[in-house]
């Protein structure tokens, strides 16, 4: 790990990239390296980290905007935002604990490169929705920018947002600019016990169809709920379905009563007040109940009403635990160790219910041998490869990370 390239400035990044391009040397792109275990293993003789480019370059709380160098630790950004009563609205999840590298390591650039959004995605939008500008260097060694520092900007194609979720395969970010929002005044969580997956999805969808701005809906299986460390919920030993409201205290007092009335058929919820709510959602954000324990971890995006059936279809082939977020639109599956991580069965379940699946946690040989990202339809695959070619014609950036031949 001694020979990791560590540019301190965008110019240095450009010159390093140019040198690599001239000699056609592939390079693995890292932030803090906390998500290095996601994707197919990258075969590159050189690694480069953005960690040397750090610092908040712009913060205007009254304009709800911040710019930071790509290698700035997320924790630094969140501390700075909190000091002015603000936050990242998309609540980026922290994959560190699930990947066994610990929490709180990731950089802001990597959050956008992986488009990591948490539970608030359903009301506030995804990471990509908040990314309003990027600067970076592509595989050709060119410095480029897209977007800017203003919220509304349709000048030229939306390259910034298009780079979100490209896992360092198209360009290396040097700086990202993003939208922020005020922290809510107060938080309350309604926790419904003992619902089946079907009923939980129904309840979560019904909650979101009300005019009360529900900002989090999750459902944990009995086993996963049993792993919570949360003081009030730990050891409950029953499935839990949680509905979050965030707003001014007076509003959530009113809204939670309204919600309880609408959802009365699903039982009587426990109520988590502010501190207790924050503790619970902080665990959700870190996926602390999905630690590396010899199992594999899949992330599946689907249509909420299909989620429970999709999980049931996969369950016919293996013992698994499911965590539902986004009212069922996002499912995390913990699957038993096996040579193919249950890939064939999971992809079949996804194919028949709609959606896409990514293998988030598996040993290197498994990730080498099965598709980690969703196999693409031929037309989409062709466009995807065209985009890769446009940014990185020599295929130097994170080769093979998303798809074997790309």
């Amino acid at each position: 790990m001694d020979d990791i390239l560590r540019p301190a400035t965008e110019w240095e990044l450009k010159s390093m990239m140019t040198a690599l391009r001239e000699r056609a040397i592939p390079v693995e792109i890292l932030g803090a390296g906390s998500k290095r275990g996601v994707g197919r293993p990258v075969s590159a003789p050189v690694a480069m980290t953005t960690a040397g480019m750090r610092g908040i370059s712009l913060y205007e709380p009254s304009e709800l905007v911040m710019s930071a160098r790509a290698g700035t630790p997320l924790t630094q950004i969140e501390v700075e935002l909190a000091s002015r009563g603000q936050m990242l609205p998309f609540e980026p999840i922290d994959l560190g604990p699930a990947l066994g590298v610990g929490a709180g390591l990731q950089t802001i650039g990597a959050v956008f490169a992986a488009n990591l959004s948490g539970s608030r995605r359903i009301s506030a939008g995804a990471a990509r929705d908040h990314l309003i500008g990027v600067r970076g260097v592509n595989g050709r060694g060119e410095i480029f920018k897209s977007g800017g520092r203003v919220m509304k900007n349709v000048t030229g194609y939306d390259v910034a947002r298009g780079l979100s979720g490209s896992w360092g395969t198209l360009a290396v970010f040097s700086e990202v600019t993003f939208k922020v929002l005020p922290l809510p005044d107060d938080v309350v969580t309604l926790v419904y016990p003992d619902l089946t997956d079907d009923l939980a999805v129904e309840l979560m969808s019904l909650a979101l169809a009300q005019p009360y701005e529900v900002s989090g809906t999750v459902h944990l299986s009995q086993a996963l709920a049993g792993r919570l460390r949360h003081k009030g919920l730990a050891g409950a030993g029953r499935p839990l379905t949680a509905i979050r409201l965030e707003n001014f205290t007076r509003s959530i007092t009113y809204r939670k009563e309204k919600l309880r009335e609408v959802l009365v058929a699903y039982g009587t919820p426990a109520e988590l007040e502010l501190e207790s709510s924050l503790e619970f959602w902080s665990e959700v954000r870190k996926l602390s109940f999905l630690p590396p324990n010899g199992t594999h971890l899949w992330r599946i995006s689907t249509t909420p009403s299909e989620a429970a059936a999709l999980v049931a279809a996969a369950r016919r082939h293996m013992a698994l635990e499911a965590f539902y977020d986004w009212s069922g639109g996002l499912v995390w599956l913990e699957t038993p160790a096996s040579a193919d991580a249950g890939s064939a069965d999971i992809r079949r379940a996804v194919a028949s219910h709609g959606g896409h699946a990514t293998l988030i946690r598996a040993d290197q040989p498994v990730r080498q041998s099965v598709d980690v990202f969703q196999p693409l339809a031929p037309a989409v695959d062709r466009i995807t490869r065209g985009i890769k070619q446009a940014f990185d014609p020599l295929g130097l950036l994170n080769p093979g990370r998303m798809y074997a031949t790309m």
Partner: protein
Amino acid sequence: MSLIELPSPDPAVLDAREQIVRDLIGICGDAAVISDEDGRRTFETDALTAYRRMPLAVVLPTSTEDVAAVLKYAKANGIKVVPRGAGTSLCGGALPAEDAIVLGVSKMNRVLELDYQNRFARVEAGITNLAISAAVAEEGFFYAPDPSSQLACTLAGNLAMNSGGAHCLKYGVTTNNVLGVKLVTMDGEVVEIGGSYLDAEAYDLLALIVGSEGQFGIITEATVRILRAAEGARPMMIGFETSAKAGICVARIIASGIIPVAIEFMDKPAIEVCEAFAKAGYPTDVEALLIIEVEGSEQEIVDRLAYIASIAHELNPQALVVSASDEQSAKIWKGRKSAFGAIGRLADYYCMDGTIPLGHLPYVLEEISAICARNGLRVANIFHAGDGNLHPLIMYDANSPGEIEKAERAGAEVLKLCVSVGGCLTGEHGVGIEKRDLMRAQFTDEDLAVQLRIKAVFDPDWLLNPGKVFPLDAVERAMAETDPVARRREAAAGPAEAA
């Protein structure tokens, strides 16, 4: 007459017009093709009416298959295609060319699926923006982006331009509210991008397609998010003696932790015109007016408006009026949303669309006044203050020689000013032909090359909506960069092997 150069038409294509019309009729039937001069004239411009070009022919297909067949035919014969929704583009995004087929999607306007449990609507792209909200209103839902032209403009056009509106401060713009599209590429291939899920499977192609100004393909269907509407909403109006105070008020409201659904700004000339038109009770003796809307239950609305009023009171507003009835609320919004039309009754105008960091508002407004005064033109300012998206309306007289050139010059200066303070050329209208030649004020050649290479992935021959978005010489250079031999080889191999 005007300053923007339009590419000269290909005489070979013009000569083949009759054959092309026959072929188009053969592909999608007589009823879908408009070829007579009067019929084509209806399509010769969009809402940037200073520019007009008689299209070669107009096709209004009724199915994705027909769209695909037309594009395949056009590609095979090297004929340009200009996509069109309702033709409400303010930047010439739908301006035809003499040697191009206009392909309009306005006949494809059906609602295909409404799914309240999963909160999406699947629609044909020619549906109007407002018709989506209307289709789901009964269940208390709505489609969030609300451009002023929402009664007429199509979702297809909104997707092409990534349109915004007054309420995107809270709900985001088009790209934040779309889950999937059916895109027909210039090869005539139908591609499903996204679906009814909340994120992309690999690269976020949807993000690239939305806002690509009709240059990547033609969208025939889309899946959009629908949201449950708030229990109620109410606007208030706050008038100040200076624009600077109004700007400070906006900054303080946002910094306080309240994000209203909308914060709109009008200066005195705009207030007077809109009040005369809508009789909404706008205070006419103030220099700057904010319209601020909040949502929620009755009590929440009262609480929030009181909180905002307390912030405003510290700045000694000249007027502070909370809407007293649903009727008045409707009038307040009617005045704002018909502002362009109301000003259009007084004078020709050139509507600008730059965005600025809000902190620069007082300086930028002063400079805009100075620029217009220097050019001997009047200006009214209307804009989305919460996100700094300005709409200066530069008034001129189209019948007076030289005035439109003056207006365009002043407009260009205004947009460069926006960029110079850290903003951008266009916040929600798009680049089109209008801002094409200003792109270098905001982007380097390398920035533009990155974008042009993405265009080449979808349409290397530049047949879709050509002559727009990028300076013409930048496009020429990008096309020269693409190795013609390699492109021929790729074309010969056919689409399946081209990857």
